[in-house]
């Protein structure tokens, strides 16, 4: 029995004829090298503890931090100073995020910014307003899935069936008319962030080949492929079956284009990831390969989603953070170094999202619980880095930024503003922002200028 994997392997015997049958050999537009931008969302699933990500480094600030954090306090001498554009360092990074091969190096090179105390909001909210009866708050605060969805939708007063990455892709679809693959690509499956009204993400694998196996150019092989395709086009008209059929159609189309790109191991970007084996590194390498092939793929605006999980550190937080941050810092450094190496540095901006921050007050298991406003990273050659944007919260239990007494910061910058800043850089004009971020008008200023 012939078990050649023809669609999954470029150059397999006779693949051309069968590919042509699938309509996959249509001409691809070439894109002017100067008109390409990509946004890369790095979702930290579980709710990252921003309070142990960016830490006050001055004596008084650190002492206050250590007094509350107790056993969770990072040692002062281990924090990686973040020397700001003005010349002083007010904050330090978690050491595992990395110095010369991690995020500190990106910061020092001016390619990393931090946005403080961002979170889900329906409208600006002071503590007094928050505590007042009938205050307008995001739905289901502190719930993982609801807060994930609100970060991804940039809507907090009702469920949404689109995300702001998807709406961005919808808004800029005209720039991607010549693309041979979907404008949105996920390495982490279906997510609201990359769900638009008209535009859906393609999920690509980060290991193994990406293709349909088991076909050849014999008469039965071609007949089987024809029938497989035919089964995707009959019985249309119910949502569930339509979805399953469309999924397979898209998979056949896109995998034929992308598998050779993803399978390549010696392209320039790959060298920057040497020795990095974590899941987040593999995902960012796959994204870098797609960006590397941008001229042949034809898209001018791409939205990517990658993710790293296990940030729900209700217990054993110190060890968990050490592991996750070491992976994250090294992978982001490699990613942006690689893009710089292929001349795409200023064309690509990555940024973090996460469910929520975590309580400043530790719990009894060496962990922290679900909170709200959080600090986030924005990285890339276009970023106005070495700066902290937004408003740093007062780190005090029951203080002016705490919604209660456990250290859950009421956000002072809305997700909408964070998203709008990225969307503006991506090329959405003021009118377009209103459709991509329908609740943006509730906040001022609309954008924060970090990129």
């Amino acid at each position, binding site marked *: 029995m012939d078990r050649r994997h023809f669609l999954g392997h470029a150059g397999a015997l006779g693949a051309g004829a069968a590919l042509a049958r699938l309509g996959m050999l249509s001409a691809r537009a070439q894109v002017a090298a100067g008109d390409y931008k990509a946004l890369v969302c790095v979702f930290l699933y579980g709710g990252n503890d921003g309070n142990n990500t960016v830490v006050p480094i001055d004596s008084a600030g650190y002492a206050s931090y250590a007094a509350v954090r107790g056993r969770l306090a990072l040692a002062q001498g281990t924090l990686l100073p973040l020397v700001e554009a003005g010349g002083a360092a007010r904050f330090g990074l978690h050491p595992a995020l990395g110095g010369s091969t991690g995020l500190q190096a990106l910061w020092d090179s001016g390619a990393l910014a931090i946005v403080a105390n961002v979170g889900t909001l329906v409208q600006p909210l002071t503590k007094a307003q928050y505590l007042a009866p009938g205050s307008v708050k995001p739905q289901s605060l502190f719930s993982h899935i609801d807060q994930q969805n609100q970060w991804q939708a940039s809507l907090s007063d009702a469920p949404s069936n689109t995300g702001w990455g998807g709406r961005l892709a919808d808004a800029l679809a005209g720039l991607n008319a010549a693309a041979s693959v979907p404008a949105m690509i996920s390495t982490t499956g279906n997510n609201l962030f990359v769900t638009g009204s008209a535009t859906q993400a393609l999920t690509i694998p980060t290991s193994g080949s990406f293709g349909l196996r088991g076909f050849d150019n014999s008469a039965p092989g071609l007949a089987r492929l024809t029938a497989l395709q035919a089964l995707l086009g009959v019985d249309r008209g119910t949502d*569930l079956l339509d979805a399953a059929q469309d999924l397979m159609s898209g998979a056949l189309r896109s995998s034929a284009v992308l598998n050779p790109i993803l399978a390549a191991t010696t392209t320039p970007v790959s060298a920057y990831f040497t020795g990095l084996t974590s899941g987040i590194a593999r995902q960012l390498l796959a994204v870098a390969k797609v960006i590397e092939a941008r001229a042949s793929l034809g898209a001018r605006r791409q939205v990517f989603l990658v993710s790293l999980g296990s940030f729900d550190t209700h217990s054993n937080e110190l060890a968990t953070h050490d592991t996750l941050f070491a992976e994250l810092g090294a992978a982001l450094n490699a990613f942006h170094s690689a893009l710089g190496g292929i001349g795409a540095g200023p064309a690509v901006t990555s940024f973090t999202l996460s469910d929520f921050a975590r309580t400043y007050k530790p*719990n009894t298991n060496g962990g922290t619980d679900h909170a709200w406003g959080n600090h986030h990273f924005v990285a890339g050659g276009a970023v106005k880095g070495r700066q902290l944007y937004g408003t740093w919260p007062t780190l005090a239990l029951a203080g002016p930024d705490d919604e209660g007494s456990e250290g859950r910061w009421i956000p002072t910058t809305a997700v909408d503003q964070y998203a709008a800043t990225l969307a503006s850089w991506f090329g959405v004009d003021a009118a377009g922002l209103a459709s991509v971020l329908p609740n943006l008008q509730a906040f001022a200023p609309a954008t924060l200028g970090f990129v």
Partner: protein
Amino acid sequence: MLRRVIPVLIVAALSVAACGGGSGSSSPAPPPPAGFGAADAARLLEQASFGPTSAEVTRVAALGLDGYLKEQLAAPATGYPGFVFTPHTAPADCRYDPTAPAGAASLCARDQYSLFQVQRGFFANALAAPDQLRQRVAFALSQILVVSGTEIYEAYGMAAYQNMLLNDAFGNYRQLLEDVTLSPVMGRYLDMADNDKSNPALGTSPNENYARELLQLFSIGVYRLNSDGSLMLDTGGQPIPTYGQDVIEGFAQLFTGWTYAPRPGATSAWTNPINYEGTMVSFPAHHEAGSKLLLDGFVVPAGQAPAQDLKVALDQVFNHPNVGPFVATRLIEHLVTSNPSPAYVARVAAVFADNGAGVRGDLAAVVRAILADPDARGAAPSSSAAGHLREPALYITSVLRGLGGQSDGVYLRGQAAAMGQPIFTPPTVFNFYPPGYQLPGTHTHAPEFFIADAATALARANFVNALIYGGGAPPDTTVTGSTGTTLDLTPPATAADPDALVDQLSAQLMHGSLSSAAHAAIVTAVNAVPLTDGLGRARMAAYLVATAPQFQVER
């Protein structure tokens, strides 16, 4: 438009091997009840088992709905036997050794400190255990009351938890909630184990993890529900939260003071080392002493013992009006359809509230109500929105059972992972897919589609290719009793007649629901294989039916 339904019982199988599930039919079968034909029996087996086998369809059609449910609800659990306690930290001779991946230490690590054996046991049971309905319901429960191999990597721990779900699958939901709450496996996963009372000197508060997820995911959800599962709305048209942060903190305080059971012979102390056997034990000195705010303003008085507090809290949660529609909706989604009608949910929720004998939470009665409901029965669903995508585990087992396959589970555990469902190892307590997931651009609920994407769609087709054209997987010499994974592809008698061949597969795999158009496409392909190549024809038809979206979406 459906083609005529072929009575499966008179058709020779595609060389279907006897594949389990054949117990309890030694006495002469009574005549089938009116209206319970082979197609309905096959459809019932899609909902109530890990997929129809030819033999089971024949048997169940004869037993009838009531006979089958009665048998299955009484069948004892086939569990995960033979796992023994291992310390949380693996001894040196039981750690993976990259220089000797098949050496004794590496295999010990695989068998004791990963879910390898439990996952393959899952498939072995799903394919061949006689208590199919119990296996199926327990699998659903494992995706509602979630623990995960991301943290519970000791095989004996996961086996203990799954055995508990199997034993409780047809018991009372109140008991299940208590067993889950006091399970050391859950205690470890959601941090109720070793959750201490607040400590002013250390500046620490009780851990909120179990408190929040018990309420949000295991019992009532975040909003008040009507009895038909729809959201209750306030006068302003807004959903009504079931609890606030203050209630989470109250439950977190209540769930303090529990640790693992001591090992036999060891002195029990706060805290005991990780031990997934038995149930957690309480230490009143580490239990938050003050009063605790629970649901709807109810306050537990100060000074009660941990177990006393726990009983009060679980009673309150269990009796919350949301639990019936919440559990009914989850189980219907897993067994029958992603988009149940409100009336269907209400009928099942009513049985949850009262099984007819005044008992609340009787899961056997709930499961019976789900499967016997008019919205589940018949040879085809009444609504075009009915059904659900077969999740990877079900897809795999349905292909194997429908095509006379056998497996030791070794190959299948990896295949399930490639399709997005590493068994008992969802990424978080929110399971592999969220119940509320909707297809993009629609309001159609489709939970299983959350893990359906280009990569996993191709993985499904490539799995079928490997089974049908690649010979499956050989036995694994490092696994005792390994049989590999194979189909029996002896050419069937119908190979010469493509119409009959495709009808037969449609009957076996999808209760005869293949449409005329899909049938025609497959027949055309079968005719491209020479008449003399019976095996080639059988493979062609089986591949196309098993990869067809029409099969993957169970209706």
